[in-house]
């Protein structure tokens, strides 16, 4: 009896790690399409607007597969053309801790989908929704906002910056707590 319990415990521990790797390649329509309104102004009664939440955000942001897909698409869709490899160019840097439009998955998703007034194009019909979420998750990993256990590791080609899983953790700014 004892060994069976131990085995089951061990198996459940091993399976817990599978979420990191889960590969959803089909759109998850059950989670909706992430249709939250985009704020058009920063003026808000009372200052802070309550942040919208989306079920999809959580399922994409700690998943190694989605993060690495996001990394591939960042190159494929030429985000680097304006943001360099996250260092910034014609568009703002994405690997620093400053965010013009917020650092949450939801606001980055809205940025990519709807564009932003000072030159960020809208990719609404040009990128399927799940792929926008993948990009958003990857963008967050550029500034250490993704779990290092899931963020992409070293590049196969020239490294423009430390690999995403070695960026200082944004929450602690790299200092150990």
């Amino acid at each position, binding site marked *: 009896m004892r060994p069976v319990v131990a085995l089951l415990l061990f198996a459940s521990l091993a399976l817990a790690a599978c979420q990191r790797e889960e*590969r959803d390649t089909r759109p998850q329509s059950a989670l909706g399409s992430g249709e939250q309104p985009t704020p058009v102004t920063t003026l808000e009664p009372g200052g802070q607007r309550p942040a919208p939440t989306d079920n999809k955000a959580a399922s994409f942001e700690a998943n190694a597969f989605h993060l690495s897909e996001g990394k591939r698409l960042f190159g*494929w869709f030429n985000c680097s053309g304006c943001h360099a490899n996250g260092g910034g160019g014609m568009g703002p840097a994405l690997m620093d801790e400053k965010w013009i439009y917020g650092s949450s998955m939801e606001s980055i998703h809205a940025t990519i989908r709807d564009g932003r007034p000072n030159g960020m194009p809208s990719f609404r*019909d040009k990128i*399927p929704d799940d792929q926008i979420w993948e990009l958003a998750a990857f963008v967050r990993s550029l500034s250490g906002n993704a779990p290092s256990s899931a963020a992409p590791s070293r590049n*196969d080609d020239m490294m423009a910056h430390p690999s995403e899983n070695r960026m200082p953790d944004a929450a602690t700014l790299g200092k150990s707590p």
Partner: protein
Amino acid sequence: MKRLASIAFATAMALFLQGCAGWQSALDPKGPAASELAWLIWFFTGLCAVVWVLVMAALAVPLMMRSRQHAEPLTLDASSDNRKLRVVMTAVGLTAVILVGLTLLSFFANRTLAAIGSDAALTIRVTGHQWWWEVRYEDATPSRILTTANEIHIPAGEPVRLLLTSTDVIHSFWVPSLSGKLDLIPGRMNVLDIKADKPGVYRGQCAEFCGAQHANMGTFIIAEPRAKFDAWWNDQLQPAAAPTSDEAKAGGELFLKRPCVMCHKIGGTPAGGTVAPDLTHIASRQTLAAGTLTMSRGNLAAWIADPQGVKPGAHMPVVDLSGDELNAIVAYLEALK
């Protein structure tokens, strides 16, 4: 009973050997490189079989012989010891001769393989992607450089030089009926020379595990008489056919408005993506998605509606399209001959 068993055995063997012919078989060579290799395979296998039989016999015979009774097992018998020594040394000598001989054979076979393309007039750059092949025909005139995917047309009877590389992981190019396999390595250019003796269609397959859809990474070499090949090249250089029906016209517009335009190129339209197969003449190909589906209207629709169902993990995402939109895009692509 015995007759029945032997008939069954013969039928099984015949079925088994069936697998050795066809459009993808190293044992059914259709070009000089493959012939050279097939000859080597048969020679090595035959010689090793003979050696194996001899060794087994040398083991079996003493086992079956009744051993002679010696009155005194420890007495020295010089003549018998000498004979044993001679037998062993002869066997060692023969082994050395066979090994050196086979090494020389494979060395000279390699030289023959390397000489096949020394006067190749046509150079094709083949780039491996997860999980499809980009094919680029080089030409001194820039306007004649041609990029296509998954299907490689070559003139029959002429040596062709393939430059192999990859953009992501290591793949391997293997068309068994025409040549041996050679890896496509990121950041490196490998050279493989092939020649098809006769016109025909020869199937190739990625032969280095490269991820989820490695098994569905096929390619086709289509060898044609020179005139037909030249005509094909000229056709492929033309921009995409303008859509004629209203439905196809709508499809062409949708293609540019939806995500398709981010990845694919269609010559003569603003679609200029280079990270996915060129679709300028997609309907002229025999298969879809690197040999996964045969080309037909139904399969085109199936692929575009659900690429992740056909080839799970492929780098083409599911694009949300209504039934009418799907039909329109398919009507457009189907006419891109």
